[in-house]
């Protein structure tokens, strides 16, 4: 039934703006005057107004059609914390520029819509919007509302666009960092150096680029080889590792609290360069040697459920 209703839904929504309402009132008035007097030049003025309404529809359709939207994280998003989303609107396959477009991601917690004054044909533009997610977990598939008042501001036409490759994930709300993380000291059994962000000197590996990475960390050769932006991960000084344990199954509320603390611990460990191991029940899901450990650990914490299973997450992620 839902699918049927969705199929029957109009592809565009139209809202009459304040000037548009006055314009319509004026047009109706001219129509009444034309009928009353039989003056054909008033009919001509009425036709002019009607043609402006039609033109408005055509131009706004040209403006919206062919627009593509990408939504991504500018920074890591934690539940109940302020973060930023990047909204990229591209007019790659368009011949007419997109003018006065605003895009509002249909995600709870997304703030003001991103406004794009002009996107030239074949070009793209990126805007950042504030985002305050309510809870952790992968963000389910969502649509973005793309709207415009171009050209005459008489109507606001909007369309729902599914963003390209938008797999957003919200990490758990970091708990109180003073509270000791669950688990125990696991010693220096890792026998190597742990990642410490980019504070170290020697390169440990590369990972995918995220918008907040500085340009100086881009690994140009790897980027060229792989065809996408890659950044360097650097080694840090050896440190004592700890074991982070999430007992499953747990009561949901208690489990959320534990996840929150685990998240805070992961962040602390990452900040201090302390190697750690993340266990969910008796399964070790993140070990000190895991590449892209921070992201993986946070992703698992975002997706883990109270019974120990993991929700599907970003592309390629799983157990």
């Amino acid at each position, binding site marked *: 039934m839902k699918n049927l209703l969705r199929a029957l839904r109009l592809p565009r929504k139209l809202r009459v703006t304040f*000037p548009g309402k*006055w314009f319509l009132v004026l047009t109706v008035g*001219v129509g009444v*005057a034309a*009928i*009353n*007097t*039989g*003056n*054909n*030049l*008033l*009919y*001509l*003025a*009425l*036709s*002019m107004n*009607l*043609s*402006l309404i*039609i*033109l408005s529809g055509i*131009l706004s359709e040209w403006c919206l059609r062919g627009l593509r939207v990408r939504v991504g994280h*500018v920074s890591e998003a934690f539940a109940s914390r302020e973060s*930023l989303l990047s909204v*990229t609107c*591209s007019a*790659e*396959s368009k011949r007419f*520029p997109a*003018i*006065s477009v*605003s895009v509002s991601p249909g995600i709870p917690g997304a703030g003001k819509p991103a*406004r794009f*004054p*002009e996107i*030239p*044909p*074949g*070009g*793209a*533009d*990126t805007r*950042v919007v504030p985002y305050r997610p309510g809870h952790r977990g992968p963000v389910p598939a969502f649509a973005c509302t793309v709207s415009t*008042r*171009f*050209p005459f*501001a*008489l109507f606001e036409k909007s369309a729902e666009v599914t963003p390209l490759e938008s797999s957003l994930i919200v990490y758990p709300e970091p708990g109180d960092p003073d509270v000791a993380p669950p688990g125990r000291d696991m010693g220096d059994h890792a026998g190597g150096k742990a990642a410490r962000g980019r504070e170290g000197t020697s390169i440990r590996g590369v990972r995918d*680029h995220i*918008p*907040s990475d500085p*340009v100086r960390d881009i690994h140009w*050769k790897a*980027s*060229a*080889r792989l*065809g*996408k932006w890659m950044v360097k991960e650097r080694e840090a000084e050896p440190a004592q590792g700890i074991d982070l344990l999430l007992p499953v199954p747990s009561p949901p509320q208690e489990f959320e609290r534990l996840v929150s603390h685990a998240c805070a611990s992961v962040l602390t460990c990452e900040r201090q360069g302390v190697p750690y191991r993340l266990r969910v029940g008796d399964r070790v899901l993140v070990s000190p040697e895991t590449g892209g450990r921070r992201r993986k650990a946070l992703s698992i914490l975002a997706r883990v459920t109270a019974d120990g299973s993991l929700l599907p997450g970003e592309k390629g992620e799983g157990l």
Partner: protein
Amino acid sequence: MQTEGRVRIPGVLWFSLRAHWASGLLPLAFLTEISRTAIAFAAAAFVAGAVLDWTGSSRRGWHRAGFFLLATGAAAAAADLFFGSGDLLASVVLLVLGVQSVKFLLPKTHRDGWQLCAISFLEFLAAAATTTEIQFAAFLFLFLGLSAGAMWALQAEEAAEAGGIAVPRTRAGFTVLTLLLTAVTGFCLTAVMFAVTPRIGIEQFLRRSGNRGGITGFSDAISLRDVTSVKVDRRIVARIEFPELAPGVSPPELHLRGGTYTRFDGTKWKRGRSLHERVQKAGSYYLLSAQKAAPLSSAEILMEPIGYSVLFVYPGTVSVEGALGEIRTDGRGNYRLSAGKSAVRYQVHFAPGGSPPRIRSYGPGGATLALPPGSDDIRELAMQVTSPGESDAERGELARQFFLSGFRYTLTDVASSVQEFLFRKRAGFCEHYAAGLTLLLRAAGIPARVATGYLGGEWSDVGKYLIVRQSDAHAWTEGWIGGRWVTLDATPPLGEDSPFFARMGRIGLYLDWAKQRWNKYVVNYSLQMQAKAVSGGWFALRRSATGIRRAIRRPDGQVARVAAAFVLAVAAFLLAWRMRGRRTSPFPRGMRKEDVPLSRPYARLLRSLSAGGHRRSSGTPLEDMLSEAAGKIPSLLPDAARFLSLYHRDRFGPGPLSSGESAEAGRLANLLRRGLFRTDAN
């Protein structure tokens, strides 16, 4: 760019918005009788306000002065209504001009912008309500384009205010082109909408005051006075098309009758009786006579507004078609419309041979044989002239031929009475000839009357219609011969050699053709025309479909079948080709589809660098290419460094550039591109 704490629209849109605000003044000035002083004042206020807006001058305290100006405007409008023109529309327009002038001068908010647009539209409507001139079409086109520009400007301004960003700089070329296309498309759409909007309860008469006085000869009485002013008046009074014309009939030789006069008191011709009888109507047809003569001809007459509510018909008219309201007649060939001083369009079906018998049979009546007292000399002359004739027709023709020799056409030294014309001066104009012939016929026992109207005119080869001017006004005689009124014209033909004949020239004919089409298809467009167009289109469609079906079904229709298959194949190919699309890559060389495309200034810079030999390849980013290129030109290095810093932030975050920084990045990209290009060229 801030004006009074408000964002200002840059470039073409700013001018477009201002032009739209003032565009309502143009049709008012050129097409209406609104006070020129008031329009000039509003125009001056517009110029002053535009300058103040441009310079961003503060206008604190001007609102008080504005209130005073508004009160003055209201007082002027009231004075005009009660003591001046007395026209409500004109007074309202004066008031609107006052409000507009004040708004021009004061600082404008976003809402003021919309209000000024609405005022401009009201002025445009006022012009539409009071004119029928073709120039209105030009103003419509202009107004449409400027409306689009103005609303675009206000929309951009509103979006910028809502988003807290600067109004984007629009490219002048793109903006002008878009506005032009919008105007052209809008004009075409307007034409379509105009054609399909149903004319519900439409009146055919336009309530437009005629500025012309009554045309000589069409009042209730005519006399032998000076008609020079009429004969030199070149204004067009009618345009006549002939959809059906009997063979051998020449349009310029047809007499277009406006009235007949039967009573003559020695100095003046007067109408016989009052026009009290209503003409019978069947649908949109008015039945003037019983149809007997065949074949019938038809004429589509488009009368310009004149100062008299006369219905002009050709002698022998059987019926008149059109939405003309009530028509009254006196049964003697005079027809009067219920409304005068209006442009009017109707079709006349007539027998060119003369008047057929009437539906209600009227005899000629005794008045058509009456002679003024002291007409014995006329009776003697009539006896001499017409005695060889055996029938009324022969006597009538003899009387007409009497004026062909010894009489001269003149407007200057004319006779003051019929006797003087017939027996002494023998010089006069058409009214003298008509009066002389009428009295001669009456003296010979043939009922006769004087008829007035138009004769001649210029045939337009461009539009295939007859252009009739006021100088073509004419008077002639109608005699009751063979049981009907027969036209007898004693005035010698003047033809194209006449000093009164007006010729337009080729360009003039085209201009008049445009005006004729405007009057026919816009000013007088009606529900009936809509119905005709729909039925005509439907029949044409059915005819075409039937024709195609027959051609394909025919045994020898192999060619038609092949042609149809070919057309279908071509259409399918074009559709497939169109769907496939031919897109040029929006990515500069070296970029891939997966990459986020570059914005325009960056992409242009990258292309210029590539063209300059700094090829992009995998792993060679813009900064390397730019550093390599700019390294050869030390003067560009600071700009390149600043540009790269902005470029990195714009492309890779953490946040977007501000509008000022974005503009700077674009400017630097263009600067570097030009600098590198110049060097390469050198």
